[in-house]
């Protein structure tokens, strides 16, 4: 290794005498060994990944309403939005804890309130199992009508611990789009204030490294979601 750090000397000794040859052979052997070692390392990391994939596939078999996503599928991107108190909130809200994220809006009387009600049930079921409950995050897909103030009273009705995210429409859209969430607006011909918003129905499960780990598909039922959550949290990552 000395020769490498000091090539001119090595070259000199090579030119000056044939004694340098064994050194070169030694260096080649070392290189080959290094190459082999790195090859071996690559093999072992491949096996780990394969094993992990197999384990995740086995966990997937046990899930009732969730779709496990590859570990490198998506990560929460940096964002700057508003919480229910009108304060800045960013990606760090997802740090070091599991989160279940729901995308909806308060002008949705049929599906959205029931989903939040179900989330309350999910937390209760998980806590019964003495496992740390995930953080529940409600991201408004209709931030123009869903001001922080409205979000606050709406969410508090279900559970004050739920995190609400709203803010500038474009920034919300950047966040939702980066997570693969679709939203589309339908005008109301008779009442322009009462437009409708179509949105992805699935919930997302985000891990403590901010990776999107699973999609929780509807219909949403507390027992089933809690069971899937407990299985995914125990899965290798």
């Amino acid at each position, binding site marked *: 290794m000395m020769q490498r750090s000091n090539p001119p000397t090595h070259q000199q000794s090579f030119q000056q005498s044939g004694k340098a040859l064994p050194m070169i052979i030694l260096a080649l052997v070392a290189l080959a060994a290094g190459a082999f070692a790195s090859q071996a390392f690559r093999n072992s990391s491949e096996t780990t990944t394969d094993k992990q994939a197999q384990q995740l596939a086995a966990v997937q078999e046990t899930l009732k309403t969730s779709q496990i996503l590859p570990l490198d599928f998506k990560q929460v991107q940096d964002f700057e939005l508003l919480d229910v108190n009108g304060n800045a909130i960013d990606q760090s809200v997802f740090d070091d804890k599991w989160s279940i994220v729901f995308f*909806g809006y*308060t*002008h*949705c*009387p*049929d*599906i959205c*309130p*029931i989903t939040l*009600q179900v989330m309350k049930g999910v937390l209760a079921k998980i806590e019964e199992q003495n496992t740390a409950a995930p953080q529940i995050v409600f991201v408004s897909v209709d931030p123009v*009508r869903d001001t922080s*103030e*409205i*979000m*606050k*009273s*709406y969410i*508090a*009705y*279900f559970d004050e611990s739920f995190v609400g995210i709203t803010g500038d429409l474009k920034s919300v859209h950047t966040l939702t789009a980066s997570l693969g969430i*679709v939203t589309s607006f*339908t005008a*109301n011909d*008779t*009442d322009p*204030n*009462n437009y*409708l918003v*179509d*949105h*992805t*129905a*699935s919930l997302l499960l985000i891990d403590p490294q901010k990776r999107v780990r699973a999609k929780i*598909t*509807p*219909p949403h039922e507390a027992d089933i979601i809690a069971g899937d959550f407990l299985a995914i949290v125990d899965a290798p990552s």
Partner: protein
Amino acid sequence: MNIVMRSIIALCFVIPLTVGIAHAELPQINDARLVQPPPGAKVAAAYFTIDNTSTETLVITGVSSNTDMHTEIHLSSVVDDVARMQKQDSVEIPAGASLAFKHGSYHIMLMGISEPIAAGSELLLTLQTSAGELPVVVPVITPDEASTMKKMNHEQMDKK
């Protein structure tokens, strides 16, 4: 006129009359409820079950209420993982069939809530239908009452 002719003439009056009575049989509306919306919500959904006991298709063409809220017939659905509500111009219920307005499906959408809707109060909806106007008294219930109701329905279903 002999007796046979008289009977035939009489029957001509009686038959349409009885058919008319069958037509006039009003649809039955049950389990009407509106789950109290969270504070801050500007919208709510009313549900009920409608049994078309008549011999003709029942068409619901509109809805109004005794409040200043804007009301529409909506259908919720989840298609390809997209949750959506769509306004319905009309809803048809075949003769002898029943249709549940319920969570995740048909609902009466109430929009523009200006004052909180209290649990325990009642709301009056009027459905415009092919059988005339149908009044629906809708009690406002709490979410807890709604989930108890759901459980009871499930148990009834299990017994069947």
